[in-house]
């Protein structure tokens, strides 16, 4: 810390280095950190945006995928369902055809038997068939249960997609296949007639319709044209049973007064009917009559009433209300089997006339306008004219419950046309139609039975149709759809979660990186500061050493050498310094040597001259006149001056070279000053100067080389005497100040001009050349004195003019300005204490 404070308090190398290092490293570092942080932040933001976008893309892809998958799945599953339903439709049609062909066989068999009541009875009793007995009450329906036993395969290799359905354990009963069998002679008289009650005695002539079933049969008129072995098959004949549909809140229910309608109306009257087979009987080549077999229509109903085009597959009771059921149309498009019995075309029991089919209100209005009978009007209606479900059923027909379905004229049910058209070539198929507010799949298949009148078209006996509620029929697809939707929702959720997590991770990382960057920055700056301090110390320390060395050299310690450690420029500088120091020391040594030798060599000739001159002056060379004596005296004075010069030079060179050793010893000021006064008094007297010593009793003890201080005092006093006019006054004064004692030598001479006051201590400086000549000064005395005092750690200075007021005795005036020389020497601390 101290170093730092020092570094900033003055513009040292350290502070400069510190500032430039910090500036050079910290500024780019800060810029770098700022940029890195900004980039990081931008990257983070961008990454977040990308992730978000990716999420959105993902989600929209998922959404698309969802739609596509659902659509595809629904389509695929629908296709499968459709196919399954179509297959069942065709199977059903084939089964019905096979059943009908069996009846052909029955007829042929019966025709080979000679008619007898006994044989006909036994034939009748041999032809029974089981039918499902529908429940008679709602409760009974509810008790229907499926087996709760789960059946699995004993072999685990069969466990994949293992499916098992329990058997349909419906209550069944056996009933006669035929309502009656009979033998009719060529005139139409019944000769034998067997019913479930046995042989009937109520034999009639059936050539009259009134004597036929439901008064509606006209088969006798067709028999005559039959060739031998040719079979006649009638249409379905039965009494129409009325029914009423009630519609409330879009839901259709069946009025209880209606005919039987499966689950919708258990108690209603059932449609009962027959289909009659007839075949000629030939005996010995001669036709004797016809045998007829009236198939109980119930057996036809069995085929359609218990089939369900859904997973349920079979039911013991039909339910048109659910919309999933099968029904049957004959070759002329009349409804001959339907869960709702009132839809089956039939005859009026009283009149034997066919009940006309249900038509639309629109068409009914036409009928009303036509003035025709309804049967007549409907019979004359063109087939499949303007069929559309925009039409509503005729209310008059609805009111009286006469709503049998005749596909050709049911012009508010466009699907009729579809079935009809689809079975034109005896084929099968399906389509979807919106019916009664429900989308329904409907399939159709022609019943390939081509006997008698049914051989007229490829449609054969007629056609089977299936209706399936799309919801039910879509069930598999919908289940899959729900599953996919759920999975995709979960996927969406997990994507959103991942996005959120990724976002927060990025933010965390961003913060982490920022902190790391900050830490690196701080560490770097600290390292830079540390490095700059170390480096600057590496530079400044040797420089300080150099400075110290130079200062020591200045003090004369010429043997000073810098300890060179580094090999860099500083090291070179130190080496150069050392070399310079060596050179300087050598030069100094040479100078001292020179001065010593020179002074010695000078003394020898001076000695020679002095010997001669003094000899002459002493009269050892004979008598000399006054003029010669006077001249030789001048020579003698100049020799003295020359000697002083030589001595002073030698002295100065020794002092400058620090070759003199101060002999420090404690001494009182009074003793030192008195010694000087004593030695100068002769000179003072010569020049008529008065000396006033104020320090005669000064007992302060100083630590000095007494001889040297005395030398200085003599020099100063001598100057005051020699450079000033004779008869002057000199005061020696002084006082102690803390650690030093100041000695003042004050004269009342000419004084020293301002410009010269500092120069007087320079070598060979003489303010007044003339005066110097006159007094024979060397110009070295003050220089030597200054060196001596400074060597003691003291100081010497000169002030002129002398302060008048302090020294009134000196009588200072304009001419006699006076001068004060002040020298300070250290007080001996031990003695001072």
């Amino acid at each position, binding site marked *: 810390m101290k170093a730092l404070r020092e570094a900033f308090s003055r513009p040292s190398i350290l502070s400069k280095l510190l500032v430039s290092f910090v500036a050079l490293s910290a500024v780019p570092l800060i810029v770098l950190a700022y940029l890195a942080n900004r980039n990081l932040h931008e990257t983070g933001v961008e990454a977040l945006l990308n992730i978000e976008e990716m999420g959105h893309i993902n989600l929209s892809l998922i959404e698309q995928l969802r739609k596509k998958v659902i659509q595809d799945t629904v389509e695929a599953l629908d296709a499968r369902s459709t196919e399954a339903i179509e297959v069942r439709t065709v199977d059903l049609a084939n089964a019905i055809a096979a059943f009908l062909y069996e009846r052909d066989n029955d007829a042929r068999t019966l025709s080979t038997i000679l008619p007898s009541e006994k044989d006909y009875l036994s034939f009748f009793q041999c032809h029974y068939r089981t039918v499902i007995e529908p429940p008679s009450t709602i409760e009974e329906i509810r008790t229907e249960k499926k087996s709760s036993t789960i059946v699995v395969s004993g072999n685990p290799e069969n466990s994949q997609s293992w499916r098992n359905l329990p058997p349909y354990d419906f209550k069944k009963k056996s009933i006669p296949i035929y309502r009656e069998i009979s033998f009719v002679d060529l005139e139409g008289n019944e000769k034998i007639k067997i019913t479930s009650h046995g042989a009937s005695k109520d034999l009639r002539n059936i050539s009259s319709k009134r004597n036929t079933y439901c008064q509606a049969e006209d088969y006798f008129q067709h028999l005559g044209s039959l060739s031998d072995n040719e079979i006649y098959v009638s249409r379905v004949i039965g009494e129409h049973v009325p029914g009423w549909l009630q519609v409330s809140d879009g839901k259709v229910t069946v009025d209880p007064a209606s005919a039987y309608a499966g689950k919708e109306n258990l108690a209603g009257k059932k449609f009962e009917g027959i289909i009659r087979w007839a075949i000629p009987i030939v005996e010995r080549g001669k036709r004797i009559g016809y045998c007829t077999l009236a198939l109980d229509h119930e057996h036809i109903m069995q085929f359609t009433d218990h089939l369900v085009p859904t997973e349920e597959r079979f039911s013991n009771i039909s339910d048109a209300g659910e919309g999933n059921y099968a029904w049957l149309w004959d070759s002329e498009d009349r409804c001959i089997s339907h869960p709702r019995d009132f839809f089956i075309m039939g005859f009026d029991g009283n009149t034997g006339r066919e009940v006309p089919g249900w038509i639309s209100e629109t068409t009914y209005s036409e009928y009303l306008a036509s003035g025709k009978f309804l049967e007549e009007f409907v019979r004359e209606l063109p087939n499949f004219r303007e069929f559309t479900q925009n039409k509503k059923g005729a209310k008059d027909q609805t009111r009286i419950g006469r709503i049998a379905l005749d596909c050709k004229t049911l012009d508010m049910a466009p699907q009729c046309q579809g079935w009809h058209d689809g079975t034109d070539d005896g084929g099968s198929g399906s389509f979807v139609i919106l019916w009664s507010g429900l989308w329904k799949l409907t399939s159709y298949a022609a019943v390939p039975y081509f006997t008698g009148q049914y051989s007229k078209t490829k449609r054969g006996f007629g056609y089977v149709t299936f209706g399936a509620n799309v919801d039910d029929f879509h069930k598999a697809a919908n289940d899959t759809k729900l599953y996919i939707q759920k999975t995709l929702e979960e996927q969406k959720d997990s994507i959103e979660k991942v996005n959120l997590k990724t976002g927060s991770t990025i933010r965390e990382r961003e913060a982490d990186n920022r902190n790391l960057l900050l830490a690196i920055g701080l560490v770097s700056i600290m390292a830079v500061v540390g490095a700059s301090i170390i480096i600057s110390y590496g530079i400044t320390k040797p420089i300080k050493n150099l400075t110290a060395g130079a200062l020591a050299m200045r003090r004369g310690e010429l043997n000073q050498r810098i300890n060179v450690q580094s090999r860099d420029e500083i090291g070179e500088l130190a080496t150069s310094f050392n070399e310079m120091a060596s050179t300087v020391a050598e030069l100094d040594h040479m100078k001292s040597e020179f001065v010593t030798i020179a002074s010695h060599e000078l003394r020898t000739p001076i000695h020679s001259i002095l010997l001669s001159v003094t000899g002459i002056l*002493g009269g050892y060379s004979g008598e000399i006149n006054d003029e010669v004596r006077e001249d030789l005296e001048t020579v003698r004075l100049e020799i003295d001056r020359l000697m002083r010069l030589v001595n002073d030079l030698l002295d100065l060179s020794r002092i400058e070279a620090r070759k003199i050793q101060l002999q420090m010893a404690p001494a009182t000021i009074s003793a030192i000053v008195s010694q000087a006064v004593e030695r100068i008094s002769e000179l003072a007297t010569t020049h008529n100067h008065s000396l006033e010593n104020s320090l005669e009793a000064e007992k302060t003890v100083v630590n000095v080389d007494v001889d040297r201080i005395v030398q200085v005092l003599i020099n100063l006093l001598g100057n005051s005497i020699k450079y000033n006019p004779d008869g002057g006054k000199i005061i020696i004064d002084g006082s102690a100040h803390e650690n030093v004692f100041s000695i003042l030598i004050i004269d009342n001479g000419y004084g020293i001009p301002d410009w010269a006051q500092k120069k007087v201590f320079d070598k060979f400086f003489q303010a007044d050349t003339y005066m110097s000549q006159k007094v024979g000064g060397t110009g070295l005395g003050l220089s030597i004195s200054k060196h001596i005092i400074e060597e003691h750690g003291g100081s010497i200075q000169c002030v002129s003019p002398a302060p008048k007021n302090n020294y009134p005795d000196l009588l200072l005036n304009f001419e006699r300005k006076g001068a004060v020389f002040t020298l300070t020497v250290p007080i001996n601390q031990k003695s001072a204490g």
Partner: protein
Amino acid sequence: MKINKILVVDDEDNISSYLSRKLSKLGYEVFVASDGETAIDITFSRLPDIVLLDVKLPKMNGYEVCRKIKSNETTRLTPVIMLSAKTQGNEIQQGLDAGCDLYLTKPIGFPDILQHVRSFEE
């Protein structure tokens, strides 16, 4: 003690010849030597009454010469005045250590030298 014979030892011919002339003129028997060895030879052979001895000499310096004179039984009482251009304290001390009787520094006037020589006559 009466001084009759003076040995002047100096390598500067001007100085030795001047002293020789002036002292001879005053009635002294003067021997001159310009190097240390000669000075020793003359001292031991002629036995001068006083020796004026320069310090800086060829072959053997003044201190050595003085030491030899003072260490010889015959000559040890012979006064030796050393004259030297060397004025430092240690040089004077060296001279006194060598046993000289008087140490004078150059330059010095002839009357002064004569006065110092005569001071040994009393």
